[in-house]
């Protein structure tokens, strides 16, 4: 435990009211004993079947991509979603880069600006989340089969001073004094690991090598060369976000969430209006449903709204149009209760 991680819980604080602590104690002591955990486990085992999880155990932390299991591949998909935006940017960079030299390599998360990574990783869909270690692996540079990458262990003669196009890495706070490896993309080298022997990094900082600077890569001999000295990185402090900034970010998120909730609420209200109008005024129901489909397009309520629209079409007597429009709907939702209602309404109208 570190100081930042030591939090006194409210239930342990004598400064809090007895009532507040008793509520928390009720929550803490509630062991959900009414849930049948044994049956739950049986159900789970039945659904996953015998054998190891997820088509094989996850690769151990730190295992290279070459050792990835099927589970790792699954997680990689989730991660691909999570870091989609920066990867797309990186791929674009790669495409540009590939045109400049035969030894070009694919970009990695390590050379993607972290500011771009963070938001994309914020809110993945419910798709399989990656296990924590896999997240770590995904952010680590991934070797490419057909594109050799330079490293600090590469022969000293294999590299020469290069022009760094962009490079930015944020180092962890209080990292030990070990040399920091900064990964950059050079115009004529796939990936350059440059060492900055600056000692311990006392606070989070960003190391940027300005565009056009000449950097020596790889060996210590190269580092000692004059061009390398000229290419000392520009180190600038990136202070931790202040309380105010964090609060502002939270407020922005709250507002965005409220806006999203409001949209959903409005959509639900309109759908309810359309449903209520079905029996008394199918024409109005049709207008509302059509407007909803235009305005909200594909949403969680699309399926239900389409079913209202189809019933409204039947209600106003446009049966053949309803049949035509219902065909793909019934095919894509064959077992839904909405589909059953649409079928029943069509059958009833046809039997008249």
């Amino acid at each position: 435990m570190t100081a930042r991680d030591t939090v006194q819980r409210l239930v342990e604080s004598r400064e809090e009211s007895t009532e507040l602590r008793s509520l928390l104690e009720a929550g803490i002591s509630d062991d959900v004993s009414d849930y049948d955990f044994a049956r739950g486990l049986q159900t789970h085992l039945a659904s996953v079947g015998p054998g190891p999880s997820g088509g094989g155990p996850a690769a151990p932390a730190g295992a290279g991509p070459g050792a990835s299991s099927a589970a790792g591949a699954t997680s990689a998909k989730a991660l691909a979603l999570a870091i989609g935006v920066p990867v797309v940017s990186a791929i674009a960079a790669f495409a540009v880069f590939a045109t400049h030299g035969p030894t070009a390599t694919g970009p990695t998360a390590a050379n993607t600006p972290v500011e771009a990574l963070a938001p994309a990783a914020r809110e993945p869909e419910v798709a399989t989340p990656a296990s924590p270690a896999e997240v770590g692996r995904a952010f680590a540079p991934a070797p490419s089969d057909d594109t050799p990458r330079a490293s600090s262990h590469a022969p000293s003669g294999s590299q020469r001073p290069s022009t760094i196009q962009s490079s930015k890495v944020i180092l962890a706070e209080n990292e030990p004094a070990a040399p920091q490896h900064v990964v950059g993309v050079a115009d004529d080298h796939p990936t350059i690991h440059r060492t900055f022997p600056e000692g311990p990094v006392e606070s989070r900082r960003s190391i940027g090598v300005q565009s056009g600077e000449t950097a020596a890569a790889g060996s210590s001999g190269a580092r000692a060369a004059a061009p390398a000295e000229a290419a000392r990185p520009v180190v600038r402090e990136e202070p931790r976000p202040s309380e105010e900034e964090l609060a502002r970010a939270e407020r922005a998120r709250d507002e965005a969430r409220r806006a999203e909730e409001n949209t959903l609420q409005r959509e639900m209200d309109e759908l309810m209006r359309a449903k209520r109008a079905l029996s008394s005024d199918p024409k109005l129901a049709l207008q509302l449903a059509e407007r909803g489909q235009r305005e909200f397009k594909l949403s969680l309520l699309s399926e239900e709204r389409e079913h209202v629209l189809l019933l409204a079409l039947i209600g106003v007597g446009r049966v053949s149009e309803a049949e035509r429009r219902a065909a793909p709907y019934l095919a894509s939702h064959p077992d839904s209760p909405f589909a059953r209602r649409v079928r029943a309404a069509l059958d009833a109208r046809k039997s008249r």
Partner: protein
Amino acid sequence: MTDLALRGINQREFGTLLAEEPHLDSAELFRRHAPFVAKFILRMGVPRADLDDLMQEVFLIAHRGGGYTPGPAKPTTYLASIAFRLVHTERRKRRVRSFVETNEERVQDAVGSQDPEHAAVHRQRLEQLQRALDTLDEDKRAVFVLVELQGESVVSIAAALGIPVDTAHSRLRAARKLFKEAVARQSGVEPGLGAVVAEEVTP
């Protein structure tokens, strides 16, 4: 370590997080941590009737992901992060279905097996707790529940949810403030609370 830096986790903290946790497959995760997950799901406001479905989904996702692999998040917070995302999605679906359930029903079953007198008090407290938790948005609620009710560390929560440690602290502070205010309000309007609750759950 870039991902750790992204989350504001330093090396020492990372070391403490990498406890002696082995790789755990989903069945082992269920055996060890199902009560933790069930409690988290309920405190996040999911109706009791949906608990089993969500429990199965959580561990199925863990299974598909290859189980728990040692990393910055503990097995518990790793599972909580899965449950958190499922709860978020489930809540949206529930709103779509106009599903409404009273707070009383939510805790009814949880206390059914206790002696009547104790059960009544416990039930009342759980109802009040749920109502106070309902005033928090999902993000703050998750951090609050994991820290205050389930004793998880902020750093581990941050690692599991993929947020900076400072953000997790910030959410906890905000959640505490709102929670205390909610409890105080409940105390102040206790006689008429039934009406307030009824209004909240009316579709």
